[in-house]
């Protein structure tokens, strides 16, 4: 079972407010430099890209490199002008894309 991503952001905000968004996805983030007990390198497998959109428009994105620790945790802010949906995506080296959504009501 793939572990589900964790999100933390307010459910409601005032128009024009800057909100804090915390995201975390459980992932081993194998760097490709670690060796197993037989001395063979464990192949690289990391989350290499993260994106956040609000109502279809990009808000934040990051290219993630092998030095980032397991369970990458990203915290950023966004200014909200209208109610809508944040959509987050994490791209694995193997091509898998995990997504998660959260709604916010702006008044």
């Amino acid at each position, binding site marked *: *079972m793939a*572990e*589900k991503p*964790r999100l*933390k952001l307010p459910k409601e905000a005032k128009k024009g407010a800057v909100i804090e968004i*915390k995201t*975390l996805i*459980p992932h081993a983030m194998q760097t490709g430099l670690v060796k197993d007990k037989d001395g063979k390198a464990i192949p690289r497998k990391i989350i290499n890209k993260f994106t956040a959109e609000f109502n279809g428009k990009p808000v934040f994105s990051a290219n993630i490199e092998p030095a980032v620790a*397991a*369970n990458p*945790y990203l915290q950023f802010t966004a200014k909200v002008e209208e109610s809508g949906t944040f959509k987050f995506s994490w791209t694995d080296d193997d091509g898998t894309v995990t997504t998660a959504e959260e709604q916010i009501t702006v008044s």
Partner: protein
Amino acid sequence: MFRSAMLFTAAVVAAAGVFVRLGGSVAHAQTKAPLEWGEDAAVRPWKRYQGWPVRGESKFSTLAKLVSPPPAKEPRKLGAPLAGNAENGAMLVADRNRGGSCLACHVVGPAGGADLPGNVGPDLSEIGSASREDEYLFNYIFDARVYNPETVMPPWGAHGTFNDQEIADMVAFLQTLKTPAVFKTELDDPEKRPAPVERRENLDPIENPGMWAIDKAQDLFTQKMASGSSCSSCHADAQAAFKTWAAGMPKWEPRLNKVLGVEEFVTRHARTTTGADWPMETDNNRVMSVYLHFLANGTPIAIDTSSTEAKAAIERGKELASRKIGELNFACTDCHGKSADHWIRGQWLGPPKGQYDHFPTWRTSLQAIWDIRQRFQWCQVNIRADELPPDAKEYGDLEIYLASQSDGQKLSVPGIRH
């Protein structure tokens, strides 16, 4: 009438060594929860966890047997003056691979760079000016019990951790110590180092990966197992059913003649009801234990001590907590009693109260969930005693004693610890 007849039959069958299943999901809320007792709740023979130190310590006492050599009655007389090598002694007192290093408990002047020493024992930085005879220092390291039967200091020589020459080397080093230790930072000084405060929100899944167990457990809870039923077949509303349950655990279980904690209960109850195979110290068992404790979060720990058997178990647990075991000859109470609120190297020793309400807990240093039984096992391996299987009755006694010490504290599971 029906219940006693059923128990009687089951006892006979169990005695014959046949796998027992007690059915009856409807009535068991009023009677006793079905438990399987024909098998062990953990793997046998017990195998130490991968990555844990491999050493057989069978010549020293464990919580199940008393075999350590008895303490010497008299200090040893040294025929000739000690010819120790102070340089080698300086290395030995700071060597973590041998004794776990003297610095774990003592400030030892410049030894080990005065890097994060502990303060369980006295500061030895000026011991060389204290006019102690070599023979006295030798015996204190060899087996301090000849001077102080209540000491928490391991009998380094009597238990064979260091040989006579090595102890002589350490004595020679100690005699060179004449000036107060110089610490690089205030944090290195155990008298000034502030007690750690846990500020993380242990119930926030972003801060505590232990919380991820809840989702997994909720899936397991509704999953149909070998018998075609799931936990939710009987416990439709888990939140209501287990709102306080875990806060009353562990408890004396007359059918097994021992104390059952949540983890062993889960193994035995699941086996007999859903057919799920969730032995203790496997992932599914840990996850279910986290969930069942989590559902009772906020409930004060309240152990049922009404029966004479429960009282006797607590008494036995209390005795076990003060039993000296392992090569290092420590009792639980040596660290979490006599030496509580002190530093052992960079780690803070807490009193017994507060060591239970957050288990199972997430361990950030290991990226793993540990239940209380695994914590017991690690304490033992760490002091160089052989651990017992997690379902050992001695651990049941110890757990009910520990829980009774934390009576009234509110559960907050999963915890998060180093």
